[in-house]
Each structure stands twice: as C-alpha cells, then as structure tokens.
C-alpha cells in the first residue's frame, strides 16, 4: 500500500514537471545570445564548411579534446572493474549470418571513411565514422567471427590513446600561435582532417572495447 502511494506521488510530480517545463518553453522569449551569426561569420576561416564540424573541432575544440579524454578514462575504469576474467569461447552463429557480416564489414569501413571525409562539408565527421567502425567490430563479435578481447596489448593500447595524444600534440604545438587550439586559417582544414582521422581510429577502438571487454565471462 505504501509503495502504491509512493508510485502515485512520484508520477504526479513527474507529470507536473512536464507541464511546468512545457509552459516555460512556450513562454520562452527571443534568445539574448545568438551564436548563429558569429558561427556563420567565421566559417570561411575555420577550415571546414559545415557549421557543426566547425564548432566541434575549431571554435569549441577544447570540448572535443576533453570528450575523448573522458572516453579514455571511462574505458580505463571499465578495464579496472572487469579485471582478468577469461574470454568465453565464441559461439559461432548461423553461416548465413556470418556471411552477411563478412559482406557488411567492408561496406561499413567504406562508409566510415566517407563519413570522415564528408564531415568537412555536410553532416558526418569523426564521431559518426568511429561509431560505424565500432558497430562493425560488434557485429563481427556477435556472429562469432571476432572473439571478445582480454587484456589490451601494446598495439591496442597505442590505438586507444592515439586520437587523444595526436589531438593534444596538435593543441600544444599550436600554442606558439597564441592560445590553445588556435589554428592558422591556411592550415586549419588539413589539421582538422588530421585530428579527425586520429579521433576516428581511437573512437572506434574505444567504443568497440567498451563492448568487447564487457562481453567476457563474469569473474567473481
């Protein structure tokens, strides 16, 4: 009985919150800070022509640098939690599924490279490309072609950290320009593509690791 009262109470509060928020959003005046104009004004010297990519890797490159650092820390914490559990033998899926996964994987790699390249001038970029690559790895794991990962060896460790290290190296290398991550307009496009390539590899490995290390046997 007590539980039912609690449920009713919480649901009523949640519903009231929806109406409050909806009212506040309906009542919203015109924005006092409009960032669209500054973003558009500096697009020409940002090195890319898509505004979201310009914000992610040029104007607010600092956010993206810290984001990849957060991902790396999350993965390290996950590795510390899962420990040294044994890798279960991969269960082979139906041959049709395996063949489909074998066919899909090269296509997914091509799509990832395209997304990385397209990020400069249309929706796309390192995060989407990395997510597609990681999905390919997860797909291969689910059909039994890619066993779950145990302790990361040197190659994987370098790959996981490469994106962050490359980004940090570019950021500190540009300190001579005056401030962190202030690209010279002439080289901005090349630098952003370089950073995004590193980010794609590391993001794909980190996202795939999050899944493949978790798929191990539960160790007590």
């Amino acid at each position: 009985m007590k539980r039912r009262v609690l449920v009713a109470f919480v649901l009523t509060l949640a519903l009231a919150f929806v109406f409050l928020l909806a009212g506040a959003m309906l009542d919203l005046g015109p924005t006092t800070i409009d960032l669209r104009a500054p973003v558009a004004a500096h697009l020409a010297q940002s090195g890319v022509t898509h505004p979201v990519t310009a914000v992610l890797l040029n104007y607010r490159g600092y956010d993206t640098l810290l984001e990849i650092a957060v991902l790396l820390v999350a993965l390290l914490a996950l590795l510390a939690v899962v420990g040294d559990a044994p890798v279960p033998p991969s269960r082979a899926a139906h041959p049709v599924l395996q063949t489909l996964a074998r066919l899909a994987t090269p296509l997914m790699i091509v799509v990832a490279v395209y997304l990385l390249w397209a990020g400069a001038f249309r929706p796309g970029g390192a995060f989407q490309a990395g997510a597609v690559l990681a999905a390919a790895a997860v797909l291969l794991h689910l059909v039994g072609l890619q066993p779950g990962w145990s302790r990361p060896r040197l190659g994987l460790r370098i790959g996981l950290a490469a994106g962050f290290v490359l980004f940090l190296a570019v950021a500190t290398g540009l300190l001579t320009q005056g401030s962190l991550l202030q690209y010279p307009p002439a080289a901005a496009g090349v630098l952003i593509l370089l950073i995004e390539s590193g980010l794609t590899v590391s993001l794909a490995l980190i996202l795939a690791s999050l899944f493949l290390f978790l798929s191990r046997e539960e160790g007590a």
Partner: protein
Amino acid sequence: MSTGFVFALAGAVLFSLGVAGVVLIGHLLRRILAFNLMGSGAFLVLVGLAQRQDVADPVPQAMVLTGIVVAVAATALALALVRKLHALTGQLGLPGDVDE
C-alpha cells in the same frame, strides 16, 4: 508551434519518465535505462529549442553530439559496475531498495 517545440516537448516527457524510473525502479539494469532516457530527453530539449528560429543553431547540436558519446561511455561503465556487483553478490539491486 514549430517542429522544434514538438521535439523539445517530447524531450521534457522523456526526461520526466526517466526521473520517475530512476526513483521508482530498483532493478539496476532498468535504472540505467531510465537514466539514459533522462539523457535522451535533455538532448531532445537542447536540439529542439535550438531550432526554434528558422535556422538551427549549430552550437547546441555540437554539444549534444559530444554528450551522446559521453553518455555511451558512462552507460558502459555503469553496466560493467552492475556486472561486477552481480558477480560479487548475486544481486541486481542496491541493498535497502524496495522493489515490487
């Protein structure tokens, strides 16, 4: 009432559903899902309100893109912790939680 507002409204509903879930549900897996629902709601409010005017503001969109990736990493870490808890205690809830 624009399309953006509909997105923001859906975001507010999702967020509240998520909050109610986090408070009411004892099962940790479902609680993580509810937490993700909260995050998705917040993202929807951000992108929804960003396109109130005719041209969408790219800054909130970039922030949401960053947030989605961080949310995925946080979810994976939470799942790893839940698995460890289950391995150590055989429980999928926190001690002291009342669940039906």
